[in-house]
């Protein structure tokens, strides 16, 4: 039986121009869909602002009151020292324990500093004196942070006093918070937020955009064409790769510009690692899009199937070390865990490539496996 050869023109136009047309078309979809664009570019800004400012667990400007029955040089000095710090704001004196209770209930103070009547006398003659810190522990985390900060200020004051005096110096316990000396938490969120945003956008946007073609029937038309499905897959991924990179830049800009993340991180390394992780999330999106038929399912799988494990197993919210063994084992399979490790090592600890080779290789291996799965599950037919 005679057969007819495929059109000569099909070979005349290169795969490259097909690819370019595909990327262009995809870019138009993204740019014309204001809502998606808003999510793509607004999400990092919103999340960074939320985590950086609103959801910060850092204690700043906590109101404190002072119960001081016999003010003297030492009590005034210590009170002044506490109110000078960024963490506390002096909110007046109170006359009794009952009044402290009152202020706490009204919520206009969270800490009370109580000096005994003979504070200075004890300090000068006995060499030690007592001070009581009363914290509003209805929010236990804040209470312990607040009292720790106040205790640190007292210890420092005490150390200064000891330096000036002769005789045996008081022992000052020095607590140093590594990598985050001021215990400033706002920028500690950056690697975690970055991990979550890239995972969510990369996987969800890619899967939804491919599944949209299935749902609207355009996939049928594309399949019945001489175009190699590889062009379709890569053409889909490229615009989202660019968008995710833009998100990385937005996050870095906000971190350094707004959250005062200390400089010194190897930025090219960070961007290269981000690129690798974006590739991981895009291939995850491809796998999802091969397995589902509807946009809603794709979105659901991305949100519940990816975001939840990412949140739980990345180490960003809950320390992995504290998890029971089975969960720790599972956490090894979650790509976000490895990128979170890389990002916090590079961004916060300012480590170089040598320190992140292992997680980088794991992430690269995962990407290759996912790419293989995406390739094998791609359907050439309906």
């Amino acid at each position: 039986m005679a057969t007819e050869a495929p059109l000569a023109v099909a070979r005349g136009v290169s795969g490259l121009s097909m690819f370019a047309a595909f990327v262009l078309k995809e870019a138009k979809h993204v740019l014309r869909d204001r809502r998606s664009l808003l999510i793509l570019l607004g999400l990092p800004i919103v999340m960074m602002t939320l985590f950086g400012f609103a959801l910060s667990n850092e204690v700043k400007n906590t109101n404190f009151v002072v119960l001081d029955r016999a003010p003297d040089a030492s009590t005034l000095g210590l009170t002044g020292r506490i109110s000078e710090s960024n963490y506390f704001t002096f909110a007046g004196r109170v006359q009794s324990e009952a009044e402290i209770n009152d202020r706490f209930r009204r919520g206009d103070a969270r800490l009370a500093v109580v000096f005994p009547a003979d504070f200075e006398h004890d300090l000068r003659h006995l060499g030690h004196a007592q001070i009581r810190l009363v914290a509003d522990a209805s929010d236990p985390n804040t209470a312990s942070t607040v009292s720790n900060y106040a205790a640190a200020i007292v210890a420092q004051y005490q150390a200064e006093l000891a330096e000036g005096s002769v005789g045996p110096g008081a022992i000052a316990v020095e607590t140093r918070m590594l990598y985050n000396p001021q215990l400033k938490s706002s920028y500690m969120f950056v690697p975690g937020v970055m991990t979550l945003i890239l995972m969510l956008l990369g996987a969800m946007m890619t899967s939804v955009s491919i599944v949209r073609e299935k749902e609207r029937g355009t996939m049928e038309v594309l399949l019945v064409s001489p175009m190699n499905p590889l062009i379709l897959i890569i053409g889909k991924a490229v615009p989202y790769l660019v968008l995710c990179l833009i998100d990385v830049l937005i996050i870095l800009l906000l971190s350094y510009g707004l959250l005062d993340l200390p400089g010194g991180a190897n930025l090219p390394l960070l961007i290269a690692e981000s690129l690798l992780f974006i590739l991981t999330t895009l291939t995850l999106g491809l796998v999802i899009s091969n397995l589902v038929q509807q946009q809603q399912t794709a979105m659901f799988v991305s949100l519940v199937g990816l975001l939840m494990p990412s949140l739980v197993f990345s180490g960003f919210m809950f320390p992995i070390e504290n998890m029971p063994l089975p969960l720790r084992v599972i956490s090894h399979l979650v790509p976000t865990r490895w990128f979170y490790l890389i990002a916090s090592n590079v961004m916060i600890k300012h480590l170089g490539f040598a320190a992140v080779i292992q997680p980088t290789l794991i992430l690269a291996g995962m990407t290759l496996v996912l790419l293989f799965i995406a390739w094998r599950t791609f359907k050439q037919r309906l």
Partner: protein
Amino acid sequence: MSAVVVDGLGKAYPRASSKALTDVSFAVDRGEIFGLIGPDGAGKTTLIRILTTLLLADQGTASVLGHDVVRDFRAIRALVGYMPGRFSLYQDLSVAENLAFFATVFGTTVEANYHLVADIYSQLEPFKTRLAGKLSGGMKQKLALCCALIHAPKVLFLDEPTTGVDPVSRKDFWGMLGRLREGGITILVSTPYMDEAARCDRIALVQKGQIIALDSLAGLVESHATETYAVSGERLFPILNDLRAYAGTRYCFAFGREHHLVLKPDAGGPEAALAYLRGLGHQTASIRAIRPNVEDVFIDLIHEQGQ
């Protein structure tokens, strides 16, 4: 040589109680308009999807331009044009952008093949910056046809191209298909509209996954020239019910402002039927013999199948 050869195709969907296709065989000649005519759910879309290499059949073989639909699916994809039943272009791209995109996907350019679609595209040109999603139903179908034609396909598969399109645009659309056939393109088109059968060179009547007749329209009407009568009168609906209750009726169905009636051979002819109606008080009822149209033939064939 035939453009499309289908031999013993069978297809069942998992979870479906009946088969989508059962032992379907036919051949489409080069340069003809071949119509698949049948109601929704008859298996037309399944058949077209198998031929466009989108679905795999469970049984049988099929080839398009000599290429096997399973083994040589890539070759077929480069040679055919396909327009799915649902509007399947990008709604958020403009008319011109859609055409340019599909031209590139098929390895050509709009400029190189403009002459192929000029006839149709000239009507769309005033709206070329409009988004495809904002076009009327008829315009959408014309654009989809342009996109399916831009790469000079040898065979065109159209799945219900005129469903949901107004009568004037439908007529227009069929005019275009006629001109495309003059250009030598083989067209396989499915439609639920019986009246469109007249525009096809040959038609296959599809019912429940089987082809129950295949011929030219004239041939079909001739070979199934059952004596058919048109009954009219006041109070059409009671007449229909009474005719269906009549012992001599083989079948009767509403057709516009009349009923088409086919009688059993031993029923005593139209006179007896008329007398029966008059006896029931339908004084204005009248009955006349007519030439069966494609719909009559189709219903006749379904009745034969049912027995």
